[in-house]
């Protein structure tokens, strides 16, 4: 083995405390990045996942100016013949006033978002039905699913209760219907329909006086990476309509923009953490150089050049970086694996959408390795500056 590498290794491994300290510094730097990624990127992806699963799908089709007047069947059938498409479902939204009498007391609530869904198609394209914690999802023209917060605001509505719903139709007339609560929806993290009421789409069309109209089509893909392709194909296929088709990134951009910049800031904090671990390496390596002053003097006396000394201590930086990057990445992956397998969430909030971003994992490991080498440059340079005759006097 190259004698400089062997010396670097021996000097480092014979100072186990320093080695452990330096490796820990690198490991913690990497771990901070991994934990940040798991939590904040996981939270971001979880929100994207829930928006996609509950509201927007992988592609959301709306009309630029008005409601979509093409039949559900024609649009859904058009999408579902594409192999990448898993399902498509129509939706219609409005705002409603509701009241119910609970324990002899009339409770009224206004401005409650009301969503009309097709019970047969919706369960294939969306997972909102899975958030119904009590009772069942909408199954008939007069059943209503209340979000848990709506139920609470109505004085504690329960499955089987009767609720009166008022919607203003397209002509400005009040349309009132009575519904039976079939279920209560509560989603982890509240990204679902917790603040919304859900009814049959045809009932809502009747109430709004919009027969055959649809607010949007939510399209779920079996391969979300094909969203842009499918969207473009759809828009090209209907050039004379005013359709607006958006991928999840586009349709949810407004909700996600702030979060995205937050993640960038958190990542930056993580990288600052990594920088501070580099300073720890500088300190530890300075201690190593000071502890080996006499040996450096001896090596110089028996013929080692300044560059040989430089290489020995840079090798040490590389060893610290390699071990630290290896251990840090392994611990980080262990944490990621744990978070993914346990569907980690905080305070029963939405479960994080944990993924292995290999590009970022490798980039983090390489960055910390490079930082460890850079951190070793100054101590190595200092080592080369020692004069042999003075260095050998050090006891």
């Amino acid at each position, binding site marked *: 083995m190259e*004698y400089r590498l062997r*010396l670097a290794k021996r000097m480092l491994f014979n100072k186990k405390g320093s080695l452990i300290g330096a490796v820990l510094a690198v490991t913690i730097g990497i771990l901070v990045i991994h934990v940040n990624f798991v939590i904040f990127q996981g939270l971001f992806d979880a929100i994207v996942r829930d928006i996609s699963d509950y509201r927007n799908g992988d592609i959301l089709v709306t009309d630029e100016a008005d409601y979509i007047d093409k039949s559900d069947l024609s649009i859904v059938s058009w999408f579902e013949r594409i192999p990448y498409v898993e399902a498509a479902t129509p939706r219609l939204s409005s705002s409603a006033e509701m009241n119910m009498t609970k324990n002899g007391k009339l409770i009224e609530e206004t401005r409650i978002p009301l969503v009309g869904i097709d019970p047969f198609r919706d369960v294939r394209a969306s997972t909102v039905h899975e958030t119904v914690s009590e009772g069942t999802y909408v199954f008939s023209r007069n059943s209503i699913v209340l979000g848990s917060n709506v139920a609470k605001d109505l004085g504690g509505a329960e499955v089987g209760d009767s609720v009166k719903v008022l919607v203003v139709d397209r002509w400005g007339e009040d349309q009132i219907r009575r519904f039976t609560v079939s279920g209560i929806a509560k989603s982890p993290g509240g990204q679902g329909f917790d603040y919304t009421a859900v009814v049959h789409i045809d009932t809502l069309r009747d109430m709004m006086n919009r027969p055959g109209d649809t607010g949007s089509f939510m399209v779920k893909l079996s391969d979300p990476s094909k969203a842009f392709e499918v969207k473009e194909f759809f828009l090209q296929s209907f050039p004379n309509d005013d359709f607006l088709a958006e991928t999840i990134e586009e349709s949810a951009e407004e909700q996600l923009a702030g979060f995205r910049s937050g993640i960038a800031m958190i990542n930056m904090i993580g990288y600052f953490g990594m920088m501070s671990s580099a300073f720890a390496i500088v300190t530890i390596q300075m201690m190593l150089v000071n502890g080996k002053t*006499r040996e450096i003097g001896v090596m110089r006396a028996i013929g080692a050049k*300044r560059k040989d000394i430089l290489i020995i201590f840079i090798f040490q930086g590389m060893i610290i970086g390699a071990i630290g990057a290896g251990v840090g990445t392994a611990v980080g992956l262990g944490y990621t694996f744990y978070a993914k397998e346990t569907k980690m969430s905080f305070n029963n909030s939405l479960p994080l959408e944990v993924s292995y971003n290999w590009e970022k994992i490798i980039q983090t490991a390489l960055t910390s390795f490079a930082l460890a080498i850079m951190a070793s440059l100054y101590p190595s340079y200092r080592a080369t500056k020692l004069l042999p*005759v003075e260095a050998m006097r050090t006891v």
Partner: protein
Amino acid sequence: MLEIHNLSKIYGEGENKVKALDNVSFSIEHGEFVLIVGSSGSGKSTLLNMIGLLDHPTNGKIFIDGTDTTTLLDDKISSFRNKKLGFIFQFSNLLSDLSVLENVLLPRQIAGTNGSAEKDARDLLRAVGLDDQIDKRANKISGGQAQRVAIARGLINKPSIVLADEPTGNLDSVTSETIVQLMKSMARKLNHTFIIVTHDRQHFSDVDRVITIKDGRAFEGDQPSEMEVLA
């Protein structure tokens, strides 16, 4: 072999100026076993550091095998030290992270000529009586053994001159005698030039030459009545 012309070394400036060496000149022939003696602070170690290219003279020239070493730049000095000079220090100065064998091999590895290095190192360790200790860590052997390893290390690159700075200064009387005899036998066997700085005159009775350093000046011999100024 070794020629020193008008060598001076001054430390400090102004009123704090100290003349460690004052216009020293002498030459040493190949194969000589030379003792440099003098009282503490006389300048003998300074002289050895100059010859060993570990320190720069203020004035004067040092020629080793015809090369003016005072004009060499840093990297050339390192190479020159590695190839032409062997060092034996008072505290042996072995690298504690390496084994006995690795310590002896180190100068050869620095030189980058590894061909028969391990065989040569083993031969030298056998010659100094340590062939059964080669795999021991350098900090696990006794002071006398460490000094023998240092001798082997000093000889591995077949240097023109072996410089020893108080090689027995840290050893008991019996071990000192052994080390001195070992150096003498190695010098005879390998026909190397040995320059030894010591104030331990009693263990070095039979040497080719004695140079005395007194107040920074060099004298041939060590008997005051016979001393001849080397200048």
